[in-house]
């Protein structure tokens, strides 16, 4: 019997779902073994009956052995969908960094909801001030949550989006009844750039001009971008973006520094703390970094990491 799979995206951008599609021919090959019972991006299963007449209090998601959830939890609907997924899926996978650590949408966690609403509906040049929408739209939670702040998560598959190789590995491992072999080291593990040490730097530059490198030469000949004085989140970020074939990290392939989209190396690590600490330990004045919280917790602001500035005492 085919493996029943349910998939949902919460507060997210559908990039994770596109990453699933980017399995390409592998997806077609896997298809006979999979039975997608729910996946709003691709198929038409509805929460409240196919005729739209179900009980709005009973959000329905079919039973599945494997549940994939992308996106963080931002509003009441997300929470209900997530809880239904958890209740109906044997194994729950947090798919993508929004699901594992809040992702980019969790940047809003640095602000209170009221500030957001004020800006959106009353502080915008193109619209007249209006009250917040409240009718028939799901109310916001106080912030964006990672899935494991609300339900138990069985497998973490970070990445913005996760590399299709690892999505395939997670599914295959599940089919084969084994632990998925996922990367657990940092981006540097896959990064071939030349590293010597970071002690000679005193500050870190903004990325206002391209890194120094010879475009005719392979990345393995380029000096580590952090050692070039560019903030690169590689050392504190989970590897994986380069996929299973061990290619260079993808941002590095474009010769731009990593921004940490796979979240912290250790699931419960803190990219901001780890990066600031690594820089400070190397004698780099961390105050030279602009927008530290927003920059270093760009992808991992859930788990209470990014929070509104406390009001001045």
């Amino acid at each position: 019997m085919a493996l029943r799979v349910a998939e949902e995206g919460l507060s997210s951008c559908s990039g994770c779902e596109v990453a699933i599609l980017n399995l390409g021919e592998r997806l077609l090959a896997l298809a006979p073994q999979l039975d997608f019972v729910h996946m709003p991006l691709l198929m038409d299963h509805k929460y409240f009956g196919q005729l739209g007449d179900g009980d709005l209090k009973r959000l329905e998601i079919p039973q599945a052995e494997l549940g994939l959830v992308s996106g963080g939890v931002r509003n009441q609907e997300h929470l209900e969908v997530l809880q239904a997924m958890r209740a109906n899926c044997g194994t729950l996978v947090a798919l993508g960094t929004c699901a594992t650590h809040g992702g980019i949408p969790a940047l809003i966690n640095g602000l209170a909801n009221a500030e957001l609403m004020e800006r959106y509906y009353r502080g915008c040049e193109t619209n007249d001030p209006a009250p917040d929408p409240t009718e028939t739209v799901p109310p916001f939670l106080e912030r964006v949550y990672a899935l494991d702040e609300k339900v138990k998560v069985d497998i973490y598959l970070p990445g913005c989006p996760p590399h299709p190789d690892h999505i395939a590995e997670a599914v295959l491992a599940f089919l084969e009844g084994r632990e998925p072999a996922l990367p657990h080291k940092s981006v540097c593990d896959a990064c071939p750039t030349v590293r010597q040490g970071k002690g000679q730097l005193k500050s870190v530059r903004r990325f206002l001009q391209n890194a120094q490198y010879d475009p005719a030469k392979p990345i393995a000949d380029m000096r580590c971008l952090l050692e070039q004085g560019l903030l690169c989140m590689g050392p504190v970020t989970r590897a994986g973006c380069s996929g299973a074939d061990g290619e260079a990290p993808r941002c590095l392939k474009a010769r731009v520094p990593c921004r940490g989209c796979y979240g912290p190396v250790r699931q419960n690590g803190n990219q901001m703390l780890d990066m600031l600490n690594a820089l400070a330990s190397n004698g780099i004045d961390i105050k030279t970094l602009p927008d530290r919280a927003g920059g270093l917790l760009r992808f991992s602001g859930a788990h209470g990491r990014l929070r509104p500035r406390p009001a001045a005492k």
Partner: protein
Amino acid sequence: MAFEPKILAFSCNWCSYAAADLAGASRMQYPANLRIVRVMCSGMVHPNLVMEAFSKGADGVMVLGCHPGECHYLDGNIKAQARLAVVEEMLDAYGLEPERFRLAWCSSAEAERFVEVVTEMTEAVRGLGPNPFRPTRPEDAQEVA
């Protein structure tokens, strides 16, 4: 019952830990709110340990090292000092009062200073009240299944 803060200190073996011993040998009295974790150097203390202490409910955390220039390992204390900015940043991000953390220098002979620092810290933290920060951890998460 009055609030009795729990304060954790990472204390360098070569200076403040020795000063704490000396304070004992000299029978100096200080508040019993301190718990010392002995380390070989203040430069050994990962800021994450400090934050872990806060996340587990410490009301105050100290890192006590040798005076600048007196580090047993050349400049571990200078690294600890550089990391101070990291802890400050994290406290700020977490909305904890900066006074809950203190980095202080104290040589092995400065038992008085040790006592003074610990007493000051205890009183300061007592004034701040309990650590309001409790993490949301997976085990706190609501189970649905």
